[in-house]
Every structure is written in C-alpha cells, then in structure tokens.
C-alpha cells in the first residue's frame, strides 16, 4: 500500500520507493526504506499530505506520496 491510501494517524515503516531515479529528492529528505512514518494531516482535497518522519513533518503532494510504499 502507498502513503496515499493511508488515513490520518497511520503509522508504519517505509518498504520501498517507486520510480526511485526520479524521486531522489524523497530519499534525500530521509524517506528511505525502514524509516518509520506517520500521517499527520491530509488537506481538504487529499493533497498535500503531512508526513512525520525522523523528528520532523514534511508535506508531500499526492503524486509524491504515491511513490512511497509502506
């Protein structure tokens, strides 16, 4: 399942990043496999999504969050 399918409050571990060559910025922001994440918020229209990881919160658009498998 990708982060887009998860509800607010979901907590889990990143399994993989899809299309990784185009998403190096996600890796560099700390979205690496085995990292714990939690969904903090979803905006009214479902994007962007606030994701807590490594001690901070990062907002990602739906298209970016779709690439994160948990």
């Amino acid at each position, binding site marked *: 399942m990708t982060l887009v399918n998860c509800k607010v409050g979901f907590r889990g571990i990143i399994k993989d990043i899809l299309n990784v060559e185009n998403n*190096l*910025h996600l*890796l*560099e922001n700390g979205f690496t496999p085995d990292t714990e994440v939690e969904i903090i*918020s979803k*905006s009214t229209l*479902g*994007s962007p999504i606030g994701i807590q990881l490594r*001690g901070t919160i990062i*907002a990602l658009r739906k298209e970016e969050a779709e690439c994160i498998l948990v």
Partner: protein
Amino acid sequence: MHFGLKPKTIILVGQPNAGKTTLFNSLTGGNFRTGNYPGITVDYFVGQLNQKYGKTDWRIIDSPGLNSLNAKSEDERVTVSCLANHPEFGIPDLIVSVLDSSQLARQLYLLKQLQEANFNIVVAVTMTDILAQKHLQVDFATLSKEFKLKFIPINARLDKGTNELVAAIKSNLNEIENPLEPKIPNEYSKEYILSTFKQLSLIEKEVLKPLSNINQVNKKLNLVSNANPTTRKIDKILLHPFLGGVFFVLIMGFLFTSIFWMAEPVMDLIDSIFGVSANFVTSHLEESLFRDLIVDGVITGIGSVLIFVPQIVILFFLMGVLEDSGYLSRAAVIIDYPLKKLGLSGRSFVPMLSGFACAIPGMLAAKSILNYKERMLTIFIMPLMSCSARLPVYALLLTFITPKNKPWIGGIGLMLLYSASIFFGSVAAGIAGKFIRKKDVSVFTLELPAYRFPVWKLIFRSTFNNSKSYLTKAGIPILIISLFMWAFTYFPGAPDNIPKDAQLDRIEYSYASQVSKFIEPVFHPIGGDWRVGVSLISAFAAREVFVSSLALVFHITDENEDSLQNSLLKSMENAKIESTGEKLFTFSSVIGLMIFFAVALQCLTTVVVSRKETGSWLIPVLQVVCFTVSAYFLTVLAVQGLRFLGLS
C-alpha cells in the same frame, strides 16, 4: 599570495528552517548587504561580524537553504557551485554548517556531503530546546569523535552559544591557513544516499541520549522519529481538512484587513506631511520651473514612494510573525492544491499575498519558489493582484457610481474588484502556464517546522531589513519614473501666443496631452476622451496619480483634501465630451475604467523590478503588452455591453 592579508570568508550552510538566517542575523547584528549569484535570480547576503564579538575582517555569507549538494535545478546548481568557489570571494575559508538537532539524521546528510567535499567545517547545532521537549539530548563528545569536527550548541534566537561559536571559528581559522579546494561531485547515486542514511541513522541512535533526569524513555513510542509533541497537537487542528481551512481564512482575513486599517492613519499622516511641505515650498519660492520641479516632481515622487511604506512594514511584520511561528508553511500546504491546478504552487501563496499590498515586494518574495516555471508564473501574474495603489482610484470611481443613500453598494463593488483580481490572475496563470517551459520537475516537499513562540527582536529586525530592501530596490525606480512623468506632463508649456491670464494648467499643453489628443479615438470606445487619456498616461508613474491628474485636467485647485474629492466628483458629474456634448463619466464608462485599472499594467516600477527578478525583458514586455491590451478590450467590451443593455 598575501598570507593573513586576505579577509576570511565564512559561509553559513544549512537546510531550510535549520536556523541559518537567525544565526546570520545574530552574528552580523543585522548589518549586511545583498548580492546576486551570476546568471540566476537567487540572492545571498554578506555581512561582517558584529563588533560585540570582537574586531575581525571576516566576511560572513548566508546562502540559500539546501537539502543536499545534489542540485536539482539550475538555481541550485549555481548555488552549490558558489559554495565551493564564490564568484566574489573565491574558495571559502570556513563553512559553518547549521544543524537542527531535533532531526539529526536528516540534517547530518548535508554535513556528510560537505565533509566529503573537503570543506573546512565548524558545526553549529540548533533546536536543542525542541529536542529537550522530547526528553532527549545530544551527546556532543561522541558526535565530535564520529565526525572529527567541532560541534557547538547554539540558540541564536536568544543569542546563546554564539560566543562559543565565534571562539571555535577563530581557533579553526588560526589553525588552518589555506583551506583545501573543495570538490563537489556532479551527482550522488541512489546507492550513496541509501547507505549514507543507513550509517547516519546508526550515528543518530548512538548520540541521542535521554535527558539525565528521566530514566525511562518509552521505547515503544520511538520518540526519536516523532516530531515535536506540541506541534503534532496544533497541526491536528490547523491542518485538519475542515478546521484547517476555517483557520486559514480567518488568519489571512485578519492579515489582509490589518494591512489596510492599521496602515490608514499613518498613510494619511504621510500624505498630509507631503501636502504641507508642498504648500510650504510653493509659498516660499518664486514661481519658476525649479519650484514646480521640487513641488510636483520631487516631493510628489518621494511621497508616492513613502506612502506605501506603512502598509509594507505591517505586511512584513505580520508575515514575519506567521513565518517565525511556523504557520506560513502550513498556509502554503492548505492552498497548494488549488494553486497547483493553475500551474502555481503553495509556495506562490506568500508572494501573491504580498502582491495585494504592492506587486514589488510580491515579486521579491517569489525568490522562495524553487521551481523555475512556478516562480516565473507567480511573477507573471503579480501585476494582476489588486495592489493598494489601485485603492484611491477605486475609491473615487466607486463613490461616483454609489448612490448617497446606499453606501453599501460601494463595499460590494470593492469586494467584486478584489474577487475579479483573483479571477483574472487565475485565468492569466492558466493561459501563460501553457507557454512557460518546464525547466525542472515540480516537487512540493515542504518541511513544516516546529511551532515556536515568535521572538520579537528577530521579527523587528527582519521587518526593518525587508522594508529597507523594498525602499532601495523600488524607491529609486519609482522616483526616477515619477520625475520623468512629471516632465512629460509639464513640458513644453503653453504656447507664447496665449495671454498669461487665459492660460490653463500646464498639463493641458504638455507632451502627454498632445499624445493623448493625438490618440483620442482610442479612448472613445471606452467612453473616454483625451482628458481621461492623459490621466491614464500619467498613471504609469503610479496608479494613484490618476486621481491627481484628473484633478489637474479638470482645474480642481482646492487645497483641502475632502473638498478636493467632492469638487472633483462634481466636475466629473458635469464633464461633457467636447465633440458630442454627451456626459463623459457615466455608469458604464466608470465601470469600464475600473476594469481597465484592475487588469492593465500601469506601473513602470513593476516592469523594472520584473526585469530584475526574471533576468530578461521577455516577461516584463509580455506583461505590459498582454495585460494592457486585454485591459483595453475588456473595457471596450464592458462599456459597449453595458450601453447595449441600456445601462449607459
């Protein structure tokens, strides 16, 4: 080589929100100048060490926030290469890496890259108070051993630890005479990033220790990965799908209205000060070209720069509060989706908001948009945001069409004009977005920093610096353009064959009038004549000049502000088109004028700043042509349409 003679160059490097700019302000005491990296529109700041830390010849440079040395856009590539070899100062002697300790592994990533690229580094560690809220602390001894670097805990918000940091910089500079030439790889592979993060996560585990007074850390909660607990709670509300929107509208509504009501008394004061000084000069100098230049050119010119300072100061102050407290990035998140549909991004929100005060600070603020296309598009639509220079014009025109017993019509009219501004902006963004080429992928990836109570000293300082930068960047062009427009509406003066007592105002014989009379047919379809035309032309100095030029061409000489508006309204009521004898200002022609002002780019200063911020003439020229031409046709459409419907 001049050993010891060359001033030392120190660059602050860190991720966005790490506290770099706060540290920079603290080290320089807020005394710095802005520089521009070659070829791109990203600024850097350079200042000297504040005297209170001792006398040095250091040049301290604040660079734009970077997540990684792995550049993803052209601007980032230039920024990164300037770290290794600065265009003005060469190879830096020292990098101060600013590190947010509450998210250690993420932040150590950039430090790791800097260290591998051979930079000479001292590390400033921030946010230890945020970390302490999670009952954790950094084991600095272990961290230093791991990296073989000096780590200094600081809290620049409260000026704590900066003395120790300066001492560490001093001893480092004494030790290292000539730094190695840094070598930054062109690319960092996926394998590199993954293995680095693996290693850094282990280091993080090793150096984060529970605070000594707490023996039991709840392992199950995995506190290390949690964000600040208070921040999590606040975000549950402020980023809630429904409540978040409500708070957004409330906060922005408050910000927006305060720009107007808080600034108004000060703006009136400035206005009357300039009125009084103009009168003073008029009564104390002989009538001459020089007097007219001083009164109508210089004093009015400086006045039109300063009149907007109160609004701009309030805007920067309130935005400083929102930014320092951490709300602005949430606002960007909430508004991202609708803006993205228009080809913009949540990051365009703050610049657009500034644009409602004045397009110029809006364009300057667009620097924070990383994506090239989104930045260009934001700058492109900026002149359509209903800036406050339009207000005096709207006020006059709305008063003209509002019946005395129904004042609320004016209020609704103003609301419609602001909505129209957002609508026109959206349409323009939608159309222009199809033409601006994409240089880099649009990523949002915005960090939401921990909420903090704002530090007033810092906000006052940033308000001062931003306002200063507005005055220097916009003030000089505004002044030059007003002087030019003054000359255009002043020369060549009345012909000799007209007796002195029969002469009208100089504006009637000016080049501006001649041009306007020559192109008068252009103004007929919009229900105007050459007098409206000359006022429209002089509005290119600044939109609000429209009102005073109108007063000039209708020979309103009353000095008193209130009766000026009343007598102007009266003469507008009576004004007739010379050739046909029809009324000049009617419901339809006034609506038309308002539409024209809403859309046309009539502010030459905006054009100059747009040229500076986009790096070429292409966008500013497009803005002038597209907005002014479509303003004209929309106005014709509105005027003729209304007349066709019988609403003359």
